[in-house]
């Protein structure tokens, strides 16, 4: 014979009991991970010795404010240009084929040796003609002419806003690598 009741006695855990439960759980966790925690303590000690921890605390306490300062500063035209250049440089190096880079590097080494000996002399127009017929010179000149043409094309397309027409730049998408 039970009348309906609604009162539920609340479980009163004293602060001391809560604390004891938390400590118990923590000790259990320490025992379970003693090796990794030992290494962590060593790391913490080093960070403490170097003052890194105090610095980190200060940074975290002021996290959003500091981030705002950094973002504002970096966003200024000069810095932004620097970042753009840095990213562009990284992209440049990423885009060069390593074999080409090796070839250029070797050429530069050969060039540096030139400084150690007497510069070649070209005797008049006939001497120039003879030099032009030298296969090594002809190959080098050909490369430089091509390079100058490519450079010129870049300036030309750059002046059109950097987009390039799809026919020239190709429309890259995931479907393949054929250029138009």
């Amino acid at each position, binding site marked *: *014979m*039970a*009348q*309906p*009741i*609604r*009162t*539920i*006695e*609340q*479980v009163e855990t004293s602060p001391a009991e809560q604390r004891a439960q938390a400590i118990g759980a923590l000790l259990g966790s320490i025992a379970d991970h003693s090796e990794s925690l030992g290494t962590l303590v060593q790391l913490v000690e080093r960070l403490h010795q170097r003052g890194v921890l105090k610095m980190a605390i200060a940074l975290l306490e002021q996290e*959003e404010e500091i*981030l*705002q300062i950094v*973002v*504002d500063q*970096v*966003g200024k035209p000069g810095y*932004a240009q620097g*970042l*753009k250049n840095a*990213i*562009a440089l990284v*992209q440049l190096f990423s885009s060069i084929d390593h074999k080409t880079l090796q070839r250029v590097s070797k050429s530069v080494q050969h060039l540096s040796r030139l400084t150690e000996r007497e510069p070649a002399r070209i005797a008049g127009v006939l001497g120039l003609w003879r030099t032009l017929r030298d296969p090594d010179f002809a190959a080098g000149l050909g490369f430089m002419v091509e390079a100058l043409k490519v450079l010129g094309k870049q300036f030309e397309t750059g002046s059109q806003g*950097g*987009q390039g027409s*799809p*026919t020239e730049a*190709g*429309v*890259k*998408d*995931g*479907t*393949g690598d*054929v250029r*138009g």
Partner: protein
Amino acid sequence: MDQTEARLDTRSKTVELTIDGKPATVPEGSNVLSAILPCTDTFPHVCYHPALGPIETCDTCLAEVDGRLVRTCAVPVQSGMNVVTKTVRARYARKEAMDRILHNHELYCTVCDNNNNNCTVHNTAMAMQIEHQKYPFEPKPYEQDNSHPFYRYDPDQCILCGRCVEACQNLQVSEVLSIDWERERPRVIWDHDVPINESSCVSCGHCVTVCPCNALMEKNMLGEAGFLTAIKPKLWESMIHLTKEIEPGYGPIFTVSEVEAQMRESRIQRTKTVCTYCGVGCSFDIWTKGRKILKVEPHMESPANQISTCVKGKFGWDFVNSPERLVHPLIRRGDRFVPVSWDEALDYTAQRLTEIRAKHGADSIGYISSSKCTNEENYLMQKFARAVMGTNNIDNCSRYCQTPATEGMRRTLGLGGDTGSISDIASADLVIIVGANPAESHPVLSTRIRRAHKKYGQKLIVADLRKNDMAKRADLWLHPKPGTDLIWLSAVTKYLIDQGWHDAQFVADHVNGYAEFQSWLETYTLEYAEEQTRIPRAELIRAAEMIRDAGKVCICWAMGVTQHIAGSETSTAICNLLLVTGQVGRPGTGAYPLRGHNNVQGAGDFGCAPAYMPGYERVEDERVRSKYAQAWGVELPASPGWDNHQMVEKIHEGTLKAMYIMGEEMALVDSNSNHVQRAFEALEFIVVQDIFFSKTAQYADVVFPAAPSLEKEGTFTNTERRIQRLYQVFEPLGDAKPDWQILTELANRLGADWRYQHPGEILDEATALTDLMNGVRFNRLEGYNSLQWPVASDGTDTPLLYSEARFPFPDGKARLYIPKWTEPVLQPNEEYDLHLNNGRMLEHFHEGNLTYRVHGIEEKVPTTYLEVSEELAKQRGIQTGALVRIVSPYGAVKLRAVVTDRVSGNELYLPMNTPKDQEAVNYLTSSYHDDVTHTPAYKEIHVRMEILEERGKSPMTRGNFRLGNPNPQPGVMVERKWRRADYRPLVDESESKAATVRSEMK
């Protein structure tokens, strides 16, 4: 027609074509995009979604087909087609299309909460190696809309793809969203351009789920998903500015955002679960961070729902973290409940149950299992009652709703389950809904009917007292006198036979009992039906003609049929109609009683009924009992026990002394609550197992804190007989435990030796003992895999019952069963002059113990309300907001009224969804019941209305979708975009014209 539907229609027919020079074979009816994607999965397609089909707004999937530049999503494959994706023209067009999209969308992925490896815009831009925007991003002149409690719209991020509009207009078919294409800067609008929360938005979440970017986002995701997204707005804007300032191209930005997205995977868990809010059985991933739920994400591989959800499934889960959860076992001591340890609670319960059994016998205790619990828990509850406690007094709440439907089907067709799948309902030519309100009670299933009706010409007949959402859309709405469905169904059946419109061959070959049935039908003339049901004769003829004209017919029904004293009989009449017309056993046909709770089907399947062991094997059968005796190692009681209705009566008679109620709010959801509660007061001992301190728990001696579905593993069986697995999302809160663990620990204190460590072991034990589900195994249900019973031992399942017209009776034939017509009880009279109908509302579940604890739902719909017709309101001089007392012979409730055209005349409607005593409908309902199944006649009740205040504040508050004004559109209406002066077509001119014609014809 989308790809999936096309596949269904064309079965194994295929087409051969060439894609980028390579031969490909694809199903007939597919579109070219579907043929390209298996070859090149990164091929762009931003607006195309397989659940929605082609909407042609984004232009990113362009390719050359036989030399013409076309949108590949919209072009069906044809034999010999030559598809080339890599031409310059096609590439140019796709790049241009993406540039146009990015004009509308700011790429700040690393600080975007949608950057979770699944953002379509991000992934497409990256796959296309977009480095620069041709058209710089320009903000739109609109504010974010944050009015809705669950999601927000950011016009600045909206790419105007229209996926959300298509999903709302043609998949959910609530017809709320559209794009206003004629503005200078188009945007998505709700209704006729009102704030989201003031629109007719039903909060189903389709739009948010299909949004390919962060324009529509779940609010729980904002500031939570990303590592850098919770920062202050000023800093956040500065970071976006810096990113844009220094950007050398998007490549490096994408790399950083990809890394960040990957980091998110380590702290955001995605766990598959199955929804518990109705019998449709939607499955989806729940995204969580710690105990916080970030979002619900359904998938195309979700077998019942694909990407569909309703407000409860998409947004209704925060109750799991409610501070009101039960987290300690409680024992009644004097005038209060005292928290105790599990050992104390279990020991005490075992001791008390043992004492009562010793004193009064095993049958003096009743056990109520739960249609909200898993199959494994239901199996264990009946095993506990039978094997541990020695009684068949075991039942579950399906008796309150669906047992009459099961009875009707078993009599005629042989098996007690929906005869097909939701996909069959979607593909029917005609759907008949009798006494059901699926738009609110089975929301995702109703979307399939609305979509088929709107897009594919499916016909719809609704027979219901209320002009509910489906009735408003129906081609024919029948409004019978309450409780007379059997008569009109039988009259239509007779008329079909009389006209020779039935399937005589099917009846001759596959059905027994035709002659007797035909003779019984003699009474059911159209004249008799019109007189008894008040449905005009012309409407009955129209219904019969619609059945005649349909090749495939499905009938769905629910509580409007079953919760009457003749519920089993009317269910039988429905099955008879289907048999006479040969509308079973073929795709797109059949009988569909819409199961109300997530596991109504499973609770019965796994033996929680007084006369049935798992798999519907009868307890009186010696062979069955000996099988279980051998498996369980105990002798089992031979005679059927008491059902839940009988249990209440037996308490009043003094023979039932104790009850163990698992996951059921019996004090409020059984009919005639005063009668039930007085019974509880008379019990010697009650154990209640629940996740909240329910009304029923107030009567308990011991309360066990249980774990909701998100805190346990197991399986549920949906209305399609589909068994699906749920995975554990959270650890149980506090000391709460999954029900199967509580049962196991209690059983072992009562002498059992159960060693279950995981629900998988329980399922495998249970199914191996049955014929019906013999091949069901936990490991066959991994991930989104599912099985529809019957399941053979090799794991072959049965999505469609009775194919080849074989019925599980000895001669393989179905049976026409003569139903018994009984006049409804408690019809309106002088003292009680109004009829009270009752049922659900969309936003809340059951008595509301869960959904009123979800803040956003509670904000939108804070209370139940009484629906009063305009005629009655005028007659009684009341307006919306009036405070009324409703009095029946059994009790009274007091609440505020809403005047509406959803009800008519002297018929009232009261949603059952309230935890408040003064509003709960079952204080009004009676103990009359269906004679065969003892299902209460909830729907047969007369009342009178006493007016306490003629006017007052409306109980329907701002945010209730019923106050909105939908804006039906054929779809996204892309042709309005194409007509804009600033739109330049990217497809070839001939294709552009053809597409416009195609779109306008939709």
